[in-house]
């Protein structure tokens, strides 16, 4: 894993020393899991338009885009996170198809999930390229980490 996010990545920006258990993070995760899926979902077949599982997302917060040092979750790169007792399925994308880090990020996500859900029989992390990623998928927390104002504020 490139970074386990223990203080080396975005620590201290959300809530000093507490960025993973802060109330803001949990409430954002819940709202993310229950609101409408990202706009590209019209391309997906009906069975795929699942909300994102909060526990899987929480685990994937440790998987950083190494170029940027920000979690794949905050960058809006997680398209799907489905979980049953026996199986976890995650669909990830990247910002560019020319990135040689794709296999690495998939591997890190797989390792992260295996460490957290080691009683789950099957874990599959797939790289998908449609719908194409756009910067508007970055979460408000991701924007804050990038030093940008949240959406809706000028």
């Amino acid at each position: 894993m490139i970074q386990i996010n223990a203080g080396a990545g975005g620590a201290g920006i959300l809530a000093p020393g507490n960025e993973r258990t802060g109330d803001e993070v949990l409430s954002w995760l819940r709202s993310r899991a229950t609101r409408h899926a990202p706009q590209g979902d019209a391309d997906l077949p009906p069975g795929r338009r699942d909300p994102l599982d909060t526990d899987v997302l929480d685990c994937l917060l440790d998987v950083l885009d190494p170029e940027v040092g920000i979690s794949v979750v905050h960058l809006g790169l997680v398209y799907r996170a489905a979980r049953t007792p026996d199986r976890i399925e995650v669909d990830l994308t990247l910002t560019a198809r020319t990135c040689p880090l794709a296999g690495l990020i998939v591997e890190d996500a797989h390792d992260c999930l295996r460490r957290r859900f080691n009683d789950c029989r099957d874990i599959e992390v797939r790289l998908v390229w449609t719908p194409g990623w756009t910067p508007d998928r970055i979460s408000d927390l991701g924007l804050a980490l990038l030093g940008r104002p949240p959406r809706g504020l000028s």
Partner: protein
Amino acid sequence: MPHVPIPVPAARQPKDLKPSVPAPPVQLVPVPDRTVHPLRRAVLACAVGALLAGLWAGLARLGWELPRAASLASLHGPLLVSGVFGTLVALERAVALEGRWPFAAPALSGTGSILLVAGAPTAAGAWAYVLAAAVLTAASLLAVRRQPAAFTASLALGAAAWLIGSGLWALDHPVSDLAGWWLAFLVLTIVGERLELSRLMPRSGLSLPLYLLATGTFLAGAGEGLYTARGAGLAGLGLLALTAWLARHDIALRTVRLGGQARFMAICMLAGYVWLAAAGILLLVAPPGTHAYGYDMALHAILLGFVLSMVFGHALIILPAVVRIRPRFRAGLYLPLAVLHGSVALRVASDLLGAEAGRRWSGLVTVAAIAGFAACIALSTRGARSDHARSGA
């Protein structure tokens, strides 16, 4: 990886022990393939060999008395630009594209390096580099087709510049005439990738046109030739415009605040941008055509101050991606980075003043920086491996 669609229960609570649909037959889901194809390691070994030979040749050119100096000296530029940087870029592009044929590019450039260092006729190694660049250009055009964007076009244009420069060298043109094309290869490749990352930053309607204007200006000058007044002038202006664009749009301005590895990578880039601007100024006020060391200054400000600094920063993520070597970031890496930039400052100052001793010693300091960096990476990789083994993961 084969994907087997499974029925997902509507109520997906962790407490549910019985899914509402019958369980599918057990399917073995393969874990990600962790093995590294031997070709990748061999190609990386060729790049390391080219680096050692290229640095040896560089020290010889600075005036150090070394064995095999005469035969290797003229290969300094090609070994480092094509044998090292070209091989690395081509290897990354091949890993990203996930086909088999793009791997021919780094294999060919690795072969070219072996031929040159082993003493084969220069033409053999030179044409191997040309073929490598041709394959990289084709692979980069495929990337443009898959993701049409200004940044993929930049990468393809950079690959084409490598092809043109390598072709001119294979046709016996002096390196000093074609060096602009090789600089364009590296500058366009790096800045193209920064353009892609800049999508995370706020952009205006002018961002892309200004980027195109800056790169176009630089490319026009580099292609014309750094030894011509107009070529040096356009290249210098282009570099200054690119630096200004990066100062406004590059993500390093933000990631430098994150700390740890992200900050280290950002500082490597930002320090590089300082040298990019310095090279631009040097090309304008002390161009190769008029200043005795104008060529040396501009070239090494870009290749050492900008490109090699970027390599120092990205080694931490490229090595894992390409050959599954996982070094850990350590604060100690700042030391060889500082030594690298110190060596570039010493070189440029000595060039400006015509101080031969300073020039000669700056080369040794650069080599020490590279050796120190490699040692830090090796030590932190071994440390990472033993931690991994201890944790039993």
